[in-house]
């Protein structure tokens, strides 16, 4: 190891300054990311739980009152929703690109993710599968309808 350090020569100082700058940037990025994820980690208390099941090749949603929907999900603007996501056959991934909601639907596991739908977000959005799940993976979509 001594041999290695010596062989780095006299100009070694420039390289260590550069490495120091890179490391500081990475520490900053990492800390910001950790903090952001920590904020997302806590689900707000007043959430509504939606059970989501992915199977080849459609989505089923169950509201807290037991009402089930297939291929369409109705949510209210301004509310906080927690999704409990699982897969029935193979691994899927529950994804609403517009709201950056993304979590794998794994058979035998329940993964959770939450989202706050903004007040002004009334409209129709895409729900899709983002983990390769076979023949009709490309078409494993559903509609999200946000109502006032």
């Amino acid at each position, binding site marked *: 190891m001594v041999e290695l350090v010596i062989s780095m020569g006299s100009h070694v100082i*420039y390289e260590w300054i*550069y490495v120091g700058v890179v490391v500081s940037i*990475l520490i900053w990025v*990492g800390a910001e990311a*950790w903090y952001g994820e920590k904020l997302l980690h806590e689900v707000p208390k007043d959430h509504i739980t939606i059970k989501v099941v992915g199977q080849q090749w459609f989505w089923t949603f169950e509201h807290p009152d037991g009402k089930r929907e297939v291929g369409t999900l109705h949510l209210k603007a301004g509310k906080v929703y927690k999704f409990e996501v699982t897969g029935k056959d*193979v691994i899927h991934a529950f994804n609403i690109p517009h709201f950056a909601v993304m979590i794998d639907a794994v058979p035998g596991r329940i993964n959770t993710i939450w989202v706050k739908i903004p007040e002004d977000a009334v409209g129709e959005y895409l729900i899709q599968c983002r983990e390769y799940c076979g023949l009709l993976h*490309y078409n494993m979509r559903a509609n999200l309808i946000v109502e006032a």
Partner: protein
Amino acid sequence: MVIEVARPRPLWQILFSTHHTDVALLYLITSIVFFMLGGALALTIRTELLTPGTTIIGDADLFNRIFTVHGTTMLFLWILPFISGVGNYLIPILVKYKDMAYPRLNAVAYWMAVPGAALIWLGWSDTSWMAYPPYSTMRAAGPAADMWIFGLKILGLSSILGAINFIVTILKCKHPDLPMMKTSLLVWAILVSSLMTLAALPTFTAALIMLYTDRLGVSGFFDPARGGDPIAYQHLFWFTFHPEVYIFLIPAVGMAYELIPKFSRKPIFSYGSGVIAFLVLSIIAFASWAHHMLATGLTFTEKTVFMIGTLAAVPMSAMHVFNWLATMWGGRIKFAAPMKFVIGGIMLFFTSGAGGVVNTTLPLDFITHDTYWVVGHFHMMLMGTVSFIFMGFLYYMFPLITGRMYSERLANVHFWFTFIGTAVVFTAMHIVGLYGMPRRIWDYVPDPTIIVLNQIASVGAYLIGIGMIAFIILLIRDSVKGKPADMKDPFGIGEIYYDYRRREPHH
């Protein structure tokens, strides 16, 4: 010199030879052939995605099989055999030994890759190259998926044999007067990546057996109904294949170290920091595998640990880039094809490296994961950096292999089309990923932005295709009809070229 075109040898003499240059030649030709075949599949995929709905591929099943074989081919039949080819050619020369340590094992390792490749190409599996269960164990059609499993198993064994051979050749057969610290950094690169292969690959080999017994229904390792867990496979898989990313990258870095000082006509800025970066990276590479699995429902602590492990690998790559730039700084650079490809590769390395940081920072990963962003990211690395440096190195070895010089003009056509094409296609993929387009889809939402970005990507892919046609023409034409090269100094950068040798008829 191996293909003595002036005095051709019968084909069987090359095929059944155990001489390191002959085995190397077989590896190189095999890898280039599969590079072109895999590229043809890529162009098919890009053509299908040119318009929403069916373009040329009639159904999703065929599309799924195409991207599976494309991925498997590029990783295991282009990049790995190319590394073995270059290593076989140069390691004995660089450590001043007559051949590899185990010449017969060397030939066996090559010939194992042939049935492995045949199983993958005849099976035409639709599991995707990651073959996540339960899809690969319960739903994927046999015998394609079984053939894929066996194909990879054989290729894995072949890699392990090759790695053992390189390690023994470098550590035990090196000339006693040549200290390790005076060898080329390419020797270090091959040594480190071979050691990593030995440490990483057995895990995936075990996972493949488990996958197969699960498919047979005699076990339920990955089946939740039988007490298994599909996520366990992903841990085993990525424990091998995240280090594998560096096993692909490190030899390319070593090749860049071999070329940059020569074409800059300056010594390496810091040999020691190159060695340190290799060694540290080879350990840190094992601490980041689960960053491929951040969306599978890991706990907050697990996610944090693997984010830190991933970020920790970045300074090592940054040290290499610094070393390259500092070596070029103030040098009289000769912009021949090898150097152009290396410089292009370094430029694209920045983008893929920065994209990698975005992928691992936790909240952002949930935006990019499993979208085309990720496809753009790792292609920028494997095509933009690794394959670019490989192609550059192939140009550098061209006189050594054929005794002839390639046409710089055609190489220029190859470089510019490939470089512009690569930048266009993979940048467009990054952006379309941010619009939420998932990877591995045969058809996409007909949104105007997504359509336009896909079309830009396809045009980029066609540019690469044109570049590759120039490449094929150059390789065939100039190895048969090229001007005889000045074997002492083929590139006009001083008499530092490899010492080419006659085949020693010792076996």
